[in-house]
């Protein structure tokens, strides 16, 4: 679907799309069950709970128990979703994800909402800036961060059908719409959004839209920027990365996550095996953020198009030598 202009009209939050997808899944498959830890109105599992109360398990504020309950349900053949804020389900439930799901190969569907720093006002105790690193360290898990409501809805359904475990990252803030309703998505298959051979920007989640803004700004100056939506961070689409490295010679990775352990590290690891090239990283730098409106926090911590564009210019300058 490579094109040059994106309207980026504001859509709903990816967590809302997750909630809608869950309800549809519930109607399609009576084997789908959902666990939540007293955040169903925030995670948007409340819609499922209302329509399918007998298949919704209120676990209280006890994430470790919730993950293992989900693993028990999955062991008994259920398609078990467990959901909370990303920081709580990953950090408080990590040991349980490891021992009751990943290691025994029990397929569980984990959806962490309010991820990244775009949760805003609630501040760092509720922000999840290390969830990608944690989830990627669980052998066998697929890790997915959809950029908009269209891709979220589709990928939640794919995740339910996947035989293995999945972590899906969802955001609290509204996200610009990138895809048309008819677009299809495949877990593990990156999407090239723009064509260009001067530079590649690989992004996931909220930063895909920022990367597109950068692409449009630099495109107006005659610079060809290839934007790739790496909605699946694991398993990584290494073919798309190698092709971008070969054809553009420079890759910028942009993500709403710590630069340590995020997609950037995984892309760098991949290009060292295929076609080493110049790289740089836009992400959260070795710090926790703070309270503020989502826009103000993203701005202060360097995650808006301005920052992506500046990093892209620096990388282009290095490329030109």
């Amino acid at each position, binding site marked *: 679907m490579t094109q040059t202009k994106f309207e980026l009209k504001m859509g709903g939050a990816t967590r809302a799309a997750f909630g809608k997808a869950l309800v549809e899944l519930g109607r399609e498959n009576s084997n789908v*069950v959902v666990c939540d830890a007293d955040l169903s109105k925030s995670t948007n599992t409340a819609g499922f709970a209302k329509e399918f109360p*007998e*298949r919704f*398990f209120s*676990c*209280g504020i*006890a994430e*470790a*128990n919730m*993950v*293992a*309950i*989900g*693993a*028990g*349900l*999955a*062991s*008994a*053949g*259920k398609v*078990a979703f467990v959901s909370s804020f990303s920081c709580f389900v990953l950090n408080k439930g990590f*040991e*349980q994800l*490891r*021992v*009751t799901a990943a*290691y*025994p*190969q029990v397929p569980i569907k984990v959806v962490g909402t309010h991820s990244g720093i775009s949760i805003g006002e609630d501040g760092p105790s509720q922000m999840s800036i290390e969830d990608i690193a944690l989830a990627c360290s669980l052998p066998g898990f697929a890790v997915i961060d959809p950029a908009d409501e269209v891709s979220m809805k589709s990928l939640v359904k794919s995740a339910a059908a996947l035989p293995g475990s999945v972590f899906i990252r969802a955001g609290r803030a509204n996200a610009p719409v990138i895809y048309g309703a008819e677009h299809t998505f495949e877990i593990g298959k990156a999407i090239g959004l723009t064509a260009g051979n001067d530079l590649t920007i690989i992004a996931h989640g909220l930063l895909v839209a920022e990367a597109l803004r950068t692409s449009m700004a630099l495109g107006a100056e005659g610079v060809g920027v290839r934007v790739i939506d790496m909605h699946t961070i694991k398993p990584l689409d290494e073919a798309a990365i190698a092709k971008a490295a070969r054809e553009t010679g420079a890759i910028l990775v942009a993500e709403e996550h710590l630069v340590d352990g995020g997609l950037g590290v995984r892309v760098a690891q991949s290009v060292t095996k295929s076609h080493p090239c110049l790289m740089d990283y836009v992400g959260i730098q070795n710090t926790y953020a703070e309270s503020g409106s989502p826009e103000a926090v993203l701005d202060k911590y360097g995650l808006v198009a301005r920052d992506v564009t500046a990093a892209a210019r620096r990388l282009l300058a290095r490329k030109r030598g």
Partner: protein
Amino acid sequence: MATLTQPQSAEQLAAVCKTIRRHIINMVGAAKSGHPGGSLSAVELLVSLYFGGQLKHDPKNPEWKDRDRFILSKGHACPVLYAVMAEAGYCPVDKLNTLRQLGSIYQGHPDRRFLPSLEASTGSLGQGLSVALGMGFAARLDKSPSRAYVVLGDGEIQEGQIWEAAMFGAYHKLDNVCAIVDYNKIQLDGWVKDIMGLEPLGDKWRAFGWHVVEFDGHDLAKVDAAFNEARNTKGKPTCLLAHTVKGKGVSFMENNPKWHGVAPNADEIAAALKELA
């Protein structure tokens, strides 16, 4: 030694217990490491389940959807589970002495990648009760008569997740789940009362909304009666507080914290087997 349709007589069950204890000594002895004390304390509990007609299971059909589930949450006591499962026909008896060796189906802690008839991989304490409750919920949704049994260590229930799970089980009235505490009073570092005492333990479970039965966990008739009471208790889950003796059946191992995680040497193996003849 069929199990599903033929509960064994009291004499037969006592003989099975001795066989299981001999396996435990031989396995841990051969491995030169492992956990004999907490394996020996749980023998009657597992024998009553697998051979006394309490656990509805079929070793010839381990995937049977309506089977009861058993989880050894105190995974370090896997020698007792492996021995019982082998004698029941799930896995080979003649391989028990490969415990803890590379590639053995008898891994150092229960690992369902190697032994798929295990219901859960355990070893990190505190998690089995939650998994059992998830299974209990699935059975309720499926309108299955399947029950879930989970053996917990006494030291293990110092883990906070156990009490999250306890709240969940009672709140959701999961009366098809039965927790069994192997209350042998000893954990790795010493006596439970000297490390993080649990008393009044029955009151704690009752306060969390569970039906509690306390009994001598080595008296097979009382163990059997306790499981019956658990099955007949409706509207709430049951916690069986089985008072047991760590190292039970081997005089020099009984009530001695040393034998939590130490293997017997050749002389000790011989002495133990003599007592268990």
